[in-house]
């Protein structure tokens, strides 16, 4: 429970968190260096643990950690079973299943090399850390809050996403409840039959919930302030977005950078104007809109800078660099070779990236934890009951591993 008055200090505009996280995801996509990936992941988890709120959605980062582990596990298992056996350091040898002539190129079993496994781990780690970045955004900023800040013209689309977001955890919750109830009936059916037995009540429940939500929204005036004249905004947006696309294409693939830049800038401005015009017909107001302050800019910029650094260094041509620059930037270190297997390098640039990932810690303050927990967290108890709170499977309270330790 957040005490009154502390909100302003601890909360950041949700879009700033999303910008930081997505930019870090982009940065991570540009490297397979396991040291850098592990450091960024640690930094992200640290920021989440130290800066998340006490709300239920803030506990979802553990689910993403588990998901990342699953991704790595699956990738390694597949590599071991059917991957190629590049390299010479044989770890162990599985019995190989001989395949017919026409299946040449596919291997089942056989020698498992350290090089091949390392390659699989590096690759999977990159995906896992990208997922973790999304999870971090989810924990730090409620996605619904973030969607409140989208331009009014995209309002209907964001409402659809909001409803989908609320239905998904409810589906998981009713599936758990129905599954538990199946035991009461002594039904230990497995497979398709059990699926039917669980799916039918769950779907009925989901449809009823969605109808109740829709009725609630209708009764409270959703969609009422709509329907003012919007003529002209759609053609403007179409033309402007085409101009922007053409501009981007010309800029990237031809040497006419001046007209290309003009097209791009003009197009983007046109799209913004169109969105603004279309948004005007919708007279929805916002309660206590989050201000965008210097702090938000700093957090978003630290993420973007990290992405620019990693992608920029990766884009450099090593042959064109002087020896000193090569030693400092070391573009090759972003993609350490696994054949032959060498210990990956950590360059100064990477340390800067990690520091940027940690930067939000300096720009924000920790949530003040209440000294006494005044209200029992009996959500799981209530989940046994009808109409219970949506408790996503992965969102369990009190994760000892990730409980915030810093107070005040």
């Amino acid at each position: 429970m957040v005490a009154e008055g502390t909100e302003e200090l601890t909360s950041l505009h949700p879009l700033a968190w999303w910008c930081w996280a997505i930019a870090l995801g982009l940065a991570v996509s540009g490297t397979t260096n396991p040291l850098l990936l592990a450091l960024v992941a640690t930094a992200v988890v640290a920021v989440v643990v130290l800066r998340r709120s006490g709300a239920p959605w803030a506990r979802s980062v553990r689910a993403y950690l588990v998901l990342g582990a699953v991704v790595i596990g699956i990738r390694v298992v597949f590599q071991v079973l059917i991957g190629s056996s590049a390299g010479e350091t044989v770890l162990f040898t599985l019995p190989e299943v001989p395949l017919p002539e026409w299946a040449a190129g596919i291997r089942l079993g056989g020698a498992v090399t350290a090089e091949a496994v390392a390659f699989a781990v590096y690759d999977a780690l990159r995906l896992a850390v990208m997922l973790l970045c999304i999870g971090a955004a989810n924990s730090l900023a409620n996605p619904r809050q973030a969607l409140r800040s989208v331009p009014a013209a995209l309002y209907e689309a964001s409402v659809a996403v909001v409803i989908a977001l609320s239905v998904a955890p409810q589906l998981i919750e009713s599936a758990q409840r129905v599954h538990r109830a199946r035991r009461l009936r002594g039904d230990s059916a497995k497979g398709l039959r059990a699926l039917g037995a669980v799916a039918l009540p769950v779907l009925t429940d989901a449809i009823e919930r969605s109808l109740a939500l829709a009725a609630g929204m209708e009764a409270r005036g959703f969609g009422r302030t709509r329907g003012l004249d919007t003529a002209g905004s759609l053609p403007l947006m179409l033309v402007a977005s085409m101009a922007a696309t053409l501009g981007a294409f010309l800029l990237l693939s031809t040497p006419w950078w001046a007209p290309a830049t003009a097209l791009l800038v003009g197009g983007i401005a046109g799209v913004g104007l169109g969105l603004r015009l279309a948004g005007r017909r919708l007279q929805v107001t916002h309660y206590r809109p989050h201000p965008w302050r210097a702090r938000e800019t700093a957090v978003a910029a630290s993420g973007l800078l990290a992405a620019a650094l990693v992608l920029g260094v990766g884009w450099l041509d090593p042959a064109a660099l002087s020896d000193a620059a090569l030693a400092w930037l070391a573009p090759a270190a972003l993609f350490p070779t696994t054949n032959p297997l060498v210990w990956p390098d950590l360059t100064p640039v990477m340390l800067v990236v990690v520091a940027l990932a940690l930067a939000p810690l300096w720009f924000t303050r920790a949530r003040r934890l209440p000294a006494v927990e005044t209200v029992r967290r009996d959500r799981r108890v209530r989940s046994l009951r009808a109409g219970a709170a949506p408790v996503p499977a992965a969102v369990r309270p009190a994760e000892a591993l990730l409980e915030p330790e810093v107070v005040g």
Partner: protein
Amino acid sequence: MIRFEDVSLTYPGADAPTLHRVSLALPEGDLCLVVGSTGCGKSTLLGAINGLVPHFTGGTLRGRVTVAGLDTAAHRPRDLADLVGYVGQDPLRGFVTDTVEDEIAYGMEQLGIDPVAMRKRVEETLDLLGIADLRRRPLVELSGGQQQRVAIAAVLAAQPKVLVLDEPTSALDPTAAQDVLSAITTLVHEVGLTVVLAEHRLERVMQAADSMIWLPGDGSARFGTPRDLLAESTVTPPLAALARIAGWSQVPLSVREARRRAQAEHLAPAPVRPAPEPDGEVVLRARGVEVRFGELAAVRGVDLDVHRGTVTALLGRNGAGKSSLLWALQGALSCAGEIDVAGADPRRLAAAEARRLVTLVPQTAADLLYLPTVAAECAQADTESAAAPGTTAALLASLGVDVPGGRDPRDLSEGQRLALVLAIQLAARPPVVLLDEPTRGLDYRSKSELHRIVAGLAADGIAIVISTHDVEFAALASERLLLMADGELIAEGTTAALLTSSPAYAPQMAKVFAPVPVLTPSDVARGLG
């Protein structure tokens, strides 16, 4: 304020109209109760006030419904949002946002209210319903009573003139229900709102009602004062039953009124004889049962003996651990401690064998149903229980509730569905039956049916434990009582002794005739006779 002119409503595919030629005029500032048995059209009538019926649900509306002069045929529910506030049966399902403050602001955002005015109104509404300290809490973590008050606050923020509430207290424990009802009466008396409220349990709310709409079930509606209508309606809260026993033409609406009248007329029923200590064998013995969810101990150190052929009621606040205890006793929830049912531990048995010892009817009974017809469900239950074909159908028939075999279980009324699930669970012939909140959403008639069924099962030697919020039902149906608070069993004894001694849980008859221990109108009838 609200005017129904010759209103008929027929849902598509229905044989008969749900509402048939209903005419009534509700003055401004009334608290109007809508009563009637399950499925008589209460929700339809409420939905018609803000246009959800028929705009949202479909159906054909004849006649005219006007609210403050606006015809609902011409105005959609969203156009009436600042005139009629509507709170549905389960507030959690109607919540659009995540936190209390956002939820209260949501309606105003949709109406395009200026952010400065909105800020002020949110504060006023928080204070009006006494939930200012909950403002930043996530909605899913609130208790049932708090959620209900937030739902009311959320529609009130748009400053409507009419508030429509569909069974606002059906899921709440007595104290939380009292909180919600007193918030509502404050709104009527202090703010001048017109409130239309549908309710099954009238005990607490009827004293605050100015008028009443009774839907007898044939599509018609009777409009009048609660005193007159309750005297003849089939909806009989305990005080109405008392009025019939005592031969009063007007029903007293509050305990105080009934008490004064009973004293004036020197009504003095004989005290009930407390149920004897159970002497049957102990069929369920639990020692030190403890259920933990992470840090939270939902049930701690509960010791319990349930005797053969007894009906035990389990009372306690929302979140006191009643459901967890029942699930643990069935063996479906892992717990510490000893559980012994007829020499075996249900936790160590496979699901199919555990339910031969203890069976549980969960709160959402519909979770157990997944086949297209009642007959198919019965046949499936026979195979699951390894019983002779037709066992479940025969059990269902013996429960005395008419459930057509060809019906889809999802189309049944609450009472019928409960009977079906009970029959399915009884097919395993267990010596112990646990019922988790079976009275929720049941009208007085279904509750007396349930009482009859439970009494019949107990006479057959089955031990029954019922968790409930409904004190009157516990008084009627049980002989033993368990009180839980904060995961612990705080009192255990005969229903008569425990209920008459507790101010929060005393049934109305006990309050009327205190200090004479009587629990139900039938006790009074017997005591006077």
